[in-house]
């Protein structure tokens, strides 16, 4: 029972990471209609900036600031120089250009920071574990990650449903051309959304850096899963990104936790072993296939 609870927390923490990445990606894809394979690079840039800031100052707050500024600014530059010219192009052009940018960013980061993965420790305030239940100690850093994810979700909800910018974002997701026709500066809105997405990636980067390896290519690895999240959740909808993140995060965590035990109960080890390993790897894709079968536009699609 304690084990189940611990695995649920692990799933929540993974979901929080996925949500931070997916929220921006889904807006860019849904509103600007741009497939952005550079999205994962902002996560990497954030993590590297954070590690560099900690190495210089030793302060986690400085790291958060560096990650937000670094990733946000880089997002802004990328939008102004490249993405801006891709809105009206077809998806293949966008994929080619943003994939190229992702590779470019990898090289840029390795030139600036070197090939060795830098070290970033857990800030002392978030080190160690606390007892969340009697008999279950859970790392504070992971709890903080979950809380940060929840706070961002609330913040985004407020931004999107309670502010003028949010209203435009919602309108843009529903019908971009109409918003444009009404005289709203859509260009500026797009730049804002894109930078906000990059900023959230940077935040994910600084939160993940103490727990994960800060390394070249870390963004590409998680980007595929992030795309699965927004497809499951429904492209263009932040609420969809939240639902998708929770579903994918939980499926992945619980699958890794319990599929091997369950299959070994019913099957002999030489069969259950490879089967469970493949099932674990495929679990989120199976989930995506099922969702697409019944809800081709995702669970919580933006209205069109």
């Amino acid at each position: 029972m304690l084990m189940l609870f611990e695995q649920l927390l692990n799933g929540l923490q993974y979901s929080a990471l996925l949500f931070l990445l997916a929220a921006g990606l889904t807006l860019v894809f849904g509103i600007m209609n741009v497939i952005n394979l550079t999205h994962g690079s902002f996560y990497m840039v954030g993590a590297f900036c954070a590690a560099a800031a900690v190495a210089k100052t030793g302060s986690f707050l400085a790291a958060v600031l560096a990650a937000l500024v670094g990733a946000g600014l880089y997002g802004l530059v990328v939008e102004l120089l490249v993405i801006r010219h891709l809105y009206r192009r077809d998806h293949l052009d966008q994929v080619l250009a943003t994939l190229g940018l992702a590779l470019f960013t990898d090289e840029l980061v390795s030139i600036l920071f070197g090939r060795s993965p830098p070290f970033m420790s857990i800030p002392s305030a978030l080190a160690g574990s606390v007892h969340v239940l009697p008999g279950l100690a859970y790392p504070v850093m992971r709890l903080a990650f979950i809380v940060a994810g929840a706070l961002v979700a609330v913040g985004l909800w407020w931004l999107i449903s309670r502010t003028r910018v949010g209203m435009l974002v919602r309108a843009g997701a529903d019908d971009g051309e109409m918003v444009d026709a009404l005289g709203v500066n859509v260009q500026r809105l797009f730049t804002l959304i894109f930078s906000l997405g990059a900023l959230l990636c940077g935040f994910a980067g600084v939160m993940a850096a103490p727990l994960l390896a800060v390394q070249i290519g870390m963004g590409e690895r998680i980007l595929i899963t992030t795309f699965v999240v927004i497809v499951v959740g429904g492209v263009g909808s932040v609420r969809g990104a939240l639902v998708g993140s929770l579903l994918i995060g939980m499926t992945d965590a619980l699958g890794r936790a319990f599929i091997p035990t369950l299959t070994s109960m019913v099957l002999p080890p030489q069969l259950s072993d490879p089967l469970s390993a493949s099932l674990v790897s495929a679990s989120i894709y199976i989930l995506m296939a099922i969702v697409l079968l019944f809800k081709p536009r995702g669970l919580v699609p933006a209205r069109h």
Partner: protein
Amino acid sequence: MKNHALHRIAAALLLALAGSGPALAQTQKPVKIGFIGTLSTPAGYIGEDEHDAFMLAVKEGGGKLGGVPVDVVVEDDGLKPANAKQIADKMVQDGIRLFTGITFSNVMAAVGPTVLNAGGFYVSLNSGPSNYAGKACNKNFFSVAFENDSYSDTAGDVANELGIKKMVVMAPNYQAGRDAVTGFKSAYKGQIIDEIYTKLDQSDFSVELARVRSLAPDAIFQFHPGGAGINLAKQFANSGLSDKIKMITPIYSMDDRMLAASGAAAKGYYLSSLWSADLPNDQNKHFVQAFEQAYHRIPTAYAAQAYDTANLIASALKAVGGDVTGRADAFRAALLKADFPTVRGHFKFAANHYPIQDWYLLHIEDDGTGKLVYKNVKVIARDHVDPYVSQCKM
């Protein structure tokens, strides 16, 4: 016409002179060495270390290996076997017959046939697939590093040495990961209470660590090179398990760069390794010092292997005066003799052209100043040979 004939005579004279003495060696055409390495991708730091160490040996020889001028042609395979094969095809077409550089066994599998079928030599500085050690052994394939089973079966010896009764083994679900588990099991004498297979691209191990917690083993054997191993180390320490459970890995799952990125999380790791920076021999002292001076970082085991590879090639080039293709048999015999100064103290080839060498138990400790270092505890396997050598008929 007369001029033409004169030219020919002059050229013939020059050639004869070049062959006859080292005094005119500078006119010799450099021997091209194809270095196909993984220099990009997250694993790029491994290729970088190997390349830097190899080039250090070339630099020390003033652009020569064993007194023979060499031209190292470097290409990045991007960890893609298909890429590497194309590069190798091109290099073979350009007349290159001496190759090294490959880190990963799947890349090796793609490049091996191209090089060996063309009659070329492959001298491996890292990748050591089991097929070339056994049934598919080849007279022109030499491994200066290890056979893939060796780093994990010696980790099994480490577990035995530490008296571990209950183990959990953990490895990514792909060929090298499963091989590591098989290798470990072949030597470990205690009980394995569970085998956990992780996803190849996994970065979060909280789920697996929760399972480990409930299994409560004495130690974990794991094989996660590169970023995954850093992730695992950080999260293992953060979960509080590292106080109760020992961690045993090959050096390649906690190399020096990974150690720098893992910090205190890697303290207490037990490792099996074919080399450590504190090995007390002159060549090693020279290497560690020269590498640090040239690149301002401590060399990894990968770098040590690459340096040895370069010096082995140097010894063989010297024996044939750089004529790799014309005197292929003599070149091969010279490689097999392994008459070179090694950072490992002593080094010999077994019948399958894989190493006979000592493996060590290392322990990651505080050196007293707060810096983590690998302490060479003892020899865990003396003159260790891989299990495939008996299958090799050369």
